[in-house]
């Protein structure tokens, strides 16, 4: 149940910050690389991490803070719902 809600939240953020309604179209599938697909650049990853920490009120530990962990929609959503301090999709 959390997956679609978190997914929508991330898509909304991508639309609000970068793609203005085209994010869903740009992401061909949930496992496609954000970097390769031009969905998000390295600076965008930093802003995405800040957004996730603020929205879900958890801390992304330095061990997980690699581009590889946040390089696709599926990876991001799984990271969020798998986080030990995740309290549910707001």
């Amino acid at each position, binding site marked *: 149940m959390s997956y679609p809600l978190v997914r929508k939240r991330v898509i909304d953020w991508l639309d609000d910050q970068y793609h*203005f309604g085209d994010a869903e179209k740009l992401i061909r599938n949930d496992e496609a690389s954000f970097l390769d697909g031009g969905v998000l650049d390295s600076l965008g990853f930093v802003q995405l991490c800040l957004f996730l920490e603020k929205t879900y009120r958890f801390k992304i530990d*330095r061990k997980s803070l*690699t*581009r590889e962990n946040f390089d696709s929609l599926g990876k991001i959503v799984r990271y969020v719902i798998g986080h030990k301090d995740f309290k549910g999709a707001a």
Partner: protein
Amino acid sequence: MSLSEVEFAYFFPAFFLLYWVLPRRAAVQNWALCAGSLFFYATWNLKLVPLFVASTLVDFAILRGFEKFAAPQDGSPLPTDERNQKRRRALLTLGIVHNLTALAAFKYAGFFADSFNQAFGTSLPVLRLALPVGLSFYTMGRIGVLIDTYYERLTPVRSLGVWFSFVSFFPQLIAGPIGRGSELFEQYENPRKLTADAFLKAAFELATGFVLKVYIAAQVGTELVDPVFAAPGTFTRKAHLLAVVGYAGQVFADFAGYSLIAIGVGRLLGITLPDNFQFPFLSKSLPEVWRRWHMTLNRWLFDYIYGPMVTGDSFMRGRIGAGFLVVMVASGLWHGAAFTYLLWGLLHGLGLLAHHRYDLAYKGLCRKNRVWVERRRSTFYQVAGWMVTTVFFILTLIPFRAPTLAAAGKFARGLWAGGNLPNPPGTFHPYLALLLVVIYHVGALPVFEGFRKRASATPLAMKGLALGAVIVFLMLFAPVGAGTFIYAQF
């Protein structure tokens, strides 16, 4: 000995043959690489070899310490966990301090003492030590591995041969590309082999690299750039303009060419190094420039300084714009201990900050009306973005190239007012060289994708002919010994 010098043409074929006749075992290949790399390093400065070896061993001991004091893999808390964590943190601090101390002593001590003396009229001793070759580059590679291992993003390296090969690999020792443990350790841990495809790819990388480095950079540098920067303000405006545009072409060709040679040589030894340049003069914004220019340095700065700084718990958290200033000033100082590099970094930090503010404002318009999204995609917007970015990038190269701030100011005035001396007399070669830089970039535009595909599908014999033509061209027109390697000084 540098990768583009004649001596290397004697050293490398001999090493290449020896490397591939040895048993194809990772350990044997690694120790062969270490021996070759130490020989290569010793040709620059024999006296510094013990220091290089000692600091590499200290880092290896620290990396082993990270594993010794690692947290239990099953996650079960042990009484020693907290103490181990403190030990790991102490080891990381030691590793970073020991690496930065070498950098500070050799590269920055003289600059800071000199600046302090000038500012406060003191007479601190000013150290003028010879900079160990590649120090700025391999220091970053080592610190990156220390940080990644500390945060358990990387498995601690266990083999001294792997670690020594990673640190000393001669194609990347002098000027990068700055590799990462995550992309290179595995390659050193496994036996390497050389395929026909890799050989051909390396041959083209070497050919392109040599044309960029040995022909283009040298021709443009000696004929168009150096005379005008040596006497700024005395030449005409046109000469100043050609000099600064020429310098943009020169510094690109010099370093992108060298990087391609390093990548090609690495590939011939079975090691795939990361890309360092991706057609930077096609960039349509400043952030894009830094994703395409000296990519391995910039990803290091953004991943190990910028990211932790703006996502950490300090007052810099969330300060995206201020983070740009800090990281670009750090980039300026990395390039050299001089106020000219500091100014260059500051200008780029301010440029990124201005772009960030503009981008925020533009996004506000996009949220209100989608017509702004379409406008941003228009050809006019893209071309305008490219022009602003390119002009800014080229003009900021004035302090980067000028020896002092006063000379940079004089050059900028010369660009505006000009002097009486006409263009330095010369041949058509620097203009042809600049045209080749333009062609190199234009050929990478999406509109030429079909042509690129057809070119890559040409028969092997044709490719061989093309390579032969490049070699003949270089033998006829490359000004042997005329060029310098700009990035070797960093």
